[in-house]
């Protein structure tokens, strides 16, 4: 791990470290994700100014306050669609679509599956803390069956999405899951996702100690990470397990990685074919 860039440099190059401490609760996994993503970006070697973050609304949504990258942030749930417009208009940019589980799979679910279907070259990162952190702990489509939330006082009755399966079903060409505990793997997976020429989705299982942890007696950040880690099963291992055994587990790994025609590229082929020189813009 000698190749790991010194944190002091990372802070200087990619963060507004002077604005720290962040507004996140102690031990919140959002910080882990930020570090992983910036390291992955760094490791691609691509110029930092070629990266733009499209961000939604949620606890994680304030990352623009701390990150030294271009950013666009508008309404709750529209990240994949904003990212689609941006990428199509500016194919030269690397577009990172950062989302919470609520943002991505509740209100933003439609935009997510359509971005996946189009196979547009966007890197979608879903920070899955299994709750709506920002609004105080209502259940999300990623809340586990039986868990409590302010709007699930009798326990969650709706099955959660398997976000990776959903993305695959929608046509995503790169699909992976990892956790905030597995930082090394997470950096690696996010880097691959960025480098993947098509729609790439990485679900990062994350801890929300103050809301989800408390309400479900998962304890503080440390014990949440322990529990997360205890539930983690690698894809290889998972293949040897029964569906029963896999219930409640966090299966990590790269589920799909396939190279298919990328939408932006296909579109620009048409432009190059039909463009009229006299009208050039």
């Amino acid at each position, binding site marked *: 791990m000698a190749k790991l860039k010194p944190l002091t440099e990372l802070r200087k190059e990619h963060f507004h470290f002077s604005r720290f401490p962040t*507004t*996140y*609760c102690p031990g919140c996994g959002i910080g882990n994700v930020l570090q992983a993503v910036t390291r992955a970006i760094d490791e691609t070697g691509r110029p930092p100014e070629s990266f733009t973050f499209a961000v939604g609304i949620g*606890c994680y949504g304030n990352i623009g306050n701390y990150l030294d990258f271009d950013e666009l942030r508008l309404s709750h749930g529209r990240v994949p669609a904003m990212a689609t417009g941006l990428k199509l208009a500016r194919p030269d940019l690397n577009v990172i679509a950062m989302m919470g589980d609520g943002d991505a799979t509740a209100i933003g679910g439609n935009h997510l599956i359509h971005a996946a279907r189009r196979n547009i070259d966007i890197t979608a990162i879903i920070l899955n803390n299994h709750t709506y952190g*920002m609004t105080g702990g209502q259940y999300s489509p990623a809340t586990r069956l039986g868990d409590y939330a302010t709007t699930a006082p009798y326990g969650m009755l709706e099955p959660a999405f398997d976000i990776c399966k959903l993305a695959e079903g929608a046509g995503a060409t790169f699909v992976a899951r990892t956790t905030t505990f597995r930082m090394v793997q997470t950096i690696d997976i996010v880097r691959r996702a960025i480098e993947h020429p098509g729609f790439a989705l990485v679900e990062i299982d994350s801890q929300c100690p*103050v809301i989800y942890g408390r309400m479900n007696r998962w304890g503080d950040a440390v014990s949440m990470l322990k529990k997360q880690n205890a539930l983690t099963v690698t894809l290889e291992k998972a293949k040897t397990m029964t569906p029963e055994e896999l219930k409640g587990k966090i299966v990590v790994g790269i589920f799909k990685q396939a190279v298919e025609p990328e939408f932006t590229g296909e579109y620009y082929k048409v432009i190059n074919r039909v463009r009229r020189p006299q009208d050039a813009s």
Partner: protein
Amino acid sequence: MQAKQWEVRLSGTGGQGLVTAGIILAEGAGIYDGKEVVQTQVYGPQSRGGASRSEVIISDEPVMYPEVTESDVLLAMSQEAADAYIHEQRAEGIVLVDSTFVKVVPETRAKVYAIPLTKIAREVARTEIVASIVALGALATLTGIVSQDGLEQAVLARAPKGTEEANRAALHAGFAAGHEVREQ
């Protein structure tokens, strides 16, 4: 003080239970004593930890303006709170500070009482969590804005199962502490 309307501000830091204390005070005065009450608090994004504030207006008549502009009664359970709010305190009113945390009381023309609320809570209930209940008890004796009886009913109605005794002890310690400082 013969104002028929009391504006009470409870301030401190997150985790001190000031919002609940405000609700209890409002329930004591409003539901059990039959007064008119309005309770409000500051909401902010991610206001987890950090400053906390809860306000109660208690009145014999329907409360018109529902927010506290200048308080008649200020409870300050942290130095920051004391510094921030003492300037919005009326001279005729009273200020109660938790001397466990408030070491320097900013200048004010109001009457200031200092009680080590958190210390008392630790002593009588073995937990700091009920410090705000101690405070309510002290305020009840110091101001009469809520009856001891009404307050006690409100405290017990809100106390989570198993914590009734700790809360009651804290409350009574507060009553007593209030008497004590008033007699000083």
